[in-house]
């Protein structure tokens, strides 16, 4: 045996000496006394001081989660306590969620982070209990009298560290809430705790830097208008090279019928840009009167992961821009959390948008009365309606090189109940589509593991653990049906699923739904298509193949 192989006695010693619940080390202690351990790969870098200063957020400083001293501001306990009290008054849902849990445990094994890590504090019920225990200590009178008995505890710095750890191991995906008999939305508890943590400067740079950029320039990467336009024009050139068709998007054009807003990842990142090319081809194909704003240049809203006020502020730019440009309604691109904000919060935060009209498809005449309040339609609904009315000329054979499965994005699936529209599109633009196992799709879909601003590189191991249940479901269709393409309708998915697939299921690529639409669209005046939007050869069209009808 090599001398470098660790000795069994050493390994056993480490295992024996390190405490664990399994071995009963904590049997006489309360569950919350088990210490948290920040180590490489399980935490995100904190907000940079300059980012916090830009936003006017509390306690800008240089620090790291691995530091002993987190340099919390003086009087931080009162800040948290007052913050919690004011939020309990303001949001009835929070109070309801804190009071009504009976700890039945139905949610326990539904969380992808719990399934991926086995850490009991990742059970949604226990994660919420991290806040509830403090709430019980401080608030309801009966609980105050029954201290200890009711599972209450004092707010200490250790509690803050625990909150930071575990409320950043929740992607606000809401899978747990599907199984909760009371409908408790743990995502909203996470949102509130993150909001409280931001009051004392305990935060995540991967969330706050995009918030700050978006606050200043209108999109997460802080790309200014001229660059935004140049990027899209560069995609327009790519489209012309590939298809021979010159699409003509317009920017900030007053009087357009529709304002199109999509996550900025579609304009800058790979593979989002191919989805953007799909949108542009589609709009050209149907002759849509639309414009793109270089100010409301972000569909995503990381304010949702920061605070309610910030979410409201970043969301407001959509309406402001729609009003300024005088459009009739807003069409939104493929995104996840953007749609939770739009569908569940926008109307009460910034509505009613009386200056807009209830969206009507100019091509089919369909009135989207489901969007009567927000005046904003999801592109999957819009395209599914076009296909339903046979308004698109499609050749699904052009996607024969792709054997697909569909990942329901949490916020579109559970946040707005959209299951069939993307599948209807997918079945019409490609010939091979296989569903993942039933308990991993639709309302029971597993998160990518990187949602809600946890997509930081330094958090990679955590993301791989959290994303494992999703990857494992993909592996099943990969093994059974030779699936090689994971199609999705979320920008965070498009960014986070490629590494997840590359790690767990090498050989599976990630596609936006409208990228496949773009491949399949038979454009008027197009040249012979031999390559898809990624410039990969299309099966059967390489040499002598014919894509004409």
């Amino acid at each position, binding site marked *: 045996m090599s001398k470098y192989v660790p000795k069994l006695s050493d390994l056993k010693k480490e295992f024996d000496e390190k405490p664990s619940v399994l071995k009963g080390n904590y049997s006489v202690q309360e569950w919350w006394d088990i210490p948290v351990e920040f180590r490489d790969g399980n935490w995100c870098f904190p907000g940079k001081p300059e980012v916090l200063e830009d936003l006017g957020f509390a306690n800008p400083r240089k620090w790291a989660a691995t530091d002993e001293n987190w340099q919390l501001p003086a009087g931080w306990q009162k800040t948290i306590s007052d913050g919690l009290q004011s939020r309990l008054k303001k949001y009835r849902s929070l109070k309801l969620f804190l009071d009504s849990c009976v700890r039945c445990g139905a949610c326990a094994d539904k969380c992808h982070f719990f399934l991926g890590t086995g850490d*009991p504090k990742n059970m949604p019920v226990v994660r919420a209990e991290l806040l509830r225990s403090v709430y019980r200590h401080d608030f309801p009178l009966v609980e105050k009298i029954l201290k200890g008995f009711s599972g209450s505890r004092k707010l200490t710095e250790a509690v803050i560290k625990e909150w930071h750890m575990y409320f950043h191991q929740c992607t606000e995906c809401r899978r747990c809430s599907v199984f909760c008999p009371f409908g408790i939305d743990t995502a909203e508890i996470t949102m509130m705790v993150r909001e409280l943590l931001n009051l004392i400067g305990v935060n995540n740079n991967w969330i706050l830097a995009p918030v700050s950029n978006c606050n200043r320039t209108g999109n997460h990467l802080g790309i200014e208008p001229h660059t935004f336009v140049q990027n899209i024009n560069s995609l327009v050139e790519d489209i012309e090279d590939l298809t021979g068709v010159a699409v003509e998007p317009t920017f900030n054009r007053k009087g357009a019928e529709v304002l199109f807003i999509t996550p900025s990842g579609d304009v800058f990142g790979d593979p989002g840009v191919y989805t953007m090319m799909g949108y542009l081809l589609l709009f050209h194909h149907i002759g849509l009167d639309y414009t793109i704003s270089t100010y409301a240049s972000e569909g995503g809203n990381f304010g949702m992961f920061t605070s309610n006020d910030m979410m409201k502020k970043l969301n407001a730019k959509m309406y402001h821009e729609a009003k300024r440009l005088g459009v009739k309604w807003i069409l939104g691109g493929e995104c996840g959390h953007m749609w939770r904000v739009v569908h569940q919060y926008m109307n009460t935060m910034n509505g009613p948008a009386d200056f807009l009209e209830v969206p009507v498809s100019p091509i089919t005449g369909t009135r989207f009365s489901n969007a009567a309040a927000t005046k904003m339609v999801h592109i999957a609904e819009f395209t599914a309606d076009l296909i339903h009315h046979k308004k698109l000329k499609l050749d699904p054979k052009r996607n024969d090189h792709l054997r697909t499965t569909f990942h329901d994005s949490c916020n579109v699936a559970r946040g707005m109940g959209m299951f069939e529209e993307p599948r209807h599109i997918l079945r019409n633009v490609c010939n091979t589509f296989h569903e993942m196992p039933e308990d991993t799709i639709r309302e029971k879909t597993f998160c990518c593991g990187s949602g809600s601003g946890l997509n930081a*590189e330094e958090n990679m191991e955590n993301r791989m653990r959290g994303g494992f249940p999703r990857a494992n479901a993909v592996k099943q269709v990969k093994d059974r049906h030779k699936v090689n393409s994971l199609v999705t309708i979320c920008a965070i998915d498009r960014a986070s699923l490629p590494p997840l697939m590359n*790690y767990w299921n090498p050989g599976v690529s990630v596609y936006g739904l409208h990228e496949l639409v773009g491949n399949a669209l038979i454009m008027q005046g197009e040249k012979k298509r031999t390559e898809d939007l990624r410039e990969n050869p299309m099966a059967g069209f390489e040499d002598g193949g014919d894509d004409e009808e």
Partner: protein
Amino acid sequence: MNTVLAKFLESNKKAILQQWLDCALALFPEKMGYSTPVAMVLSGALEKILSGLGKSENDCQEALDDVTRILAVQNFPPSKALSIFLEPKLILRDIMMKTTVAGTLTQEVQEAFNSRFDRLTLEAFDSYMRHREKIYQLKVEEGSRRMYMALRRTEA
């Protein structure tokens, strides 16, 4: 490996696997249950490794990768992660002490088994490191993908 060992492994497969899987799950923080995806993948992979051992042409690389792929992203150090490949030797010893078939396993066969697991541990180390390196590679690739258009413009 000889037929005696293969026979022994086959007849005790269930017991060995159960104990081995328990050791593997005990690595995780607290409550990694049998019905979790992690446990299912580990269980399948450990079984493949064990089934392959008695055969002459033993290629369990894929199963080994399945195990280390999970281990390489956990919150515990490599020494702890790879310790699961040292467990079968102890499990085998325990089982042999309890079964009558044990008498038929010669010292030579036991040594062959142990030495095979030593090799497997080293192969697992290689595989574990490949996955660690992959994590760093993913970080770099993700950075480039995020800045795809900016990089393209600089190249143009």
